[in-house]
């Protein structure tokens, strides 16, 4: 994380000396372990998605519809697990593996909705529902527009 440095040179020196001392005692996240667990968790979620997709295809639905139904099912399951209070335990172990897939997005919407229900349906649940997911949506839409313009400039319309 960031650090502030004083404008007074003497104080700045003291802060820098302290910050390097403190660093020695700060345990680092276990990157290899975290990445492995993220790989397993993310992979398991993707596998579940593929199983659902094949299942819907097996029921005779077309590819587009099966894909949409698979996404809807995963979002529903993540919402359910969040409401039951289990998704945070998965997230603690899985890290990015459970945050990046569509299920993580569902969790980021449902968790504040559940949490802020106590402050009422309007100012609580509805207003706070997008506190975590909001920035993702905003910058997702902005990037989509930028990429769309770039594509138009490079390959033209159509």
């Amino acid at each position, binding site marked *: 994380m960031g650090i502030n440095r004083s404008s007074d040179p003497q104080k700045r020196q003291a*802060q820098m000396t302290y910050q390097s001392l403190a660093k020695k005692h700060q345990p680092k996240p276990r990157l290899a372990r975290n990445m492995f667990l993220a790989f397993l968790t993310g992979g398991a979620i993707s596998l579940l998605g593929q199983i659902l997709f094949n299942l819907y295809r097996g029921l005779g639905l077309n590819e587009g519809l099966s894909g949409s139904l698979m996404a809807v099912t995963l979002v529903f399951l993540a919402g359910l697990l*969040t409401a039951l209070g289990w998704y*945070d335990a998965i997230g603690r172990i899985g890290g990015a593996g459970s945050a990046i897939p569509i299920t993580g997005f569902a969790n980021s919407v449902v*968790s504040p909705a559940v*949490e802020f229900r106590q402050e009422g349906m309007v100012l609580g649940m509805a207003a706070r529902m997008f506190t975590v997911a909001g920035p993702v949506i905003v910058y997702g839409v902005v990037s989509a527009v930028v990429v769309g313009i770039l594509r138009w400039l490079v390959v033209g319309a159509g």
Partner: protein
Amino acid sequence: MAEHKRGRQTVVFRNPPVITHTFSIAGPKEGRGPLGGKFHRVLPDLYYGEKSWEKAEIKMLRDSIQELLASANLSPGQTDLVLAGDLLNQNIAASFALRELPIPFVGLFNACATFADALLLGAMLVDGGYVDTVVAAASSHYATAERQYRYPLELGVQRRPTAQRTVTGSGAVLLQTGGKAPGPKITAATLGIVQDMGLKDVNDMGSAMAPAAAATIEAHLSDLGRKPDYYDLIVSGDLASVGLAITKELLQQKQISVQNNMSCCGIMIYDLARDGVEAGGSGAGCSATVFAAHLYRELVAGNLHKLLFVGTGSLHSPTTYQQGESIPTIAHAVAVEA
């Protein structure tokens, strides 16, 4: 010159106030921890029979004060003052808890150092002859603190190994004029000065607070001309494992060795290997419950004779963090002797 003042930051008490009673309430996770058997009451869940976590924290603090007074056979009318605080905006746990107790009240905020703050101010007021009977209390609640400072509880985030877990708990102690009753006495206190070494990581409050703890401990020992081994135990509330290690090294650099007699409430309250709390506990209620449930009993039982209780607080808010400010921190020290 104030006659009770020693050095720059320390006061000594002429007629040391006595801590006559304590009462502690802890949350379910804390109840399963190493101090589980010592809390006066353990909550079955985070709601404590209420509809919101804030209401649960208010009830927890109110019950601690009420049970404390009941154990001392005191009515609210016989109590001169309550000094209490918590972590929530506008100090709502303390203020709302006192809404149903007709006792003069002053709310305090020093983040996790709030309980030490209440102890030392209470001792000053008692020794100064302004009041006879004071309640010092503090609370924190995992869920109310998480939603104010961090994320919704059910959001699946991975915690950093330097992070601390807010303790669900409240502790209340009764201070009375010295000589009135037996019990451990508050003999001296050192008031902290705000420190800021430029750290900004709210998931590593221990590193931010260590300089404040080291500065206050150093000031305390130097103001009173004491060696660190004067105390059986120097206990912080709550540096947790990262901040404790840094504090020990900072003090060692000043030739003050606390390697063998310093610990932390945030480490005592959890089993760090088993409880999944990263660096340890934090929150105004952590040091308050550990003092009221454990340290006080050790003093009364004679297992501890001289204790230096050092409350440490990170004084940031979510707004200052989002605006890129570093974390100012403070530590207050209270000497308690059996």
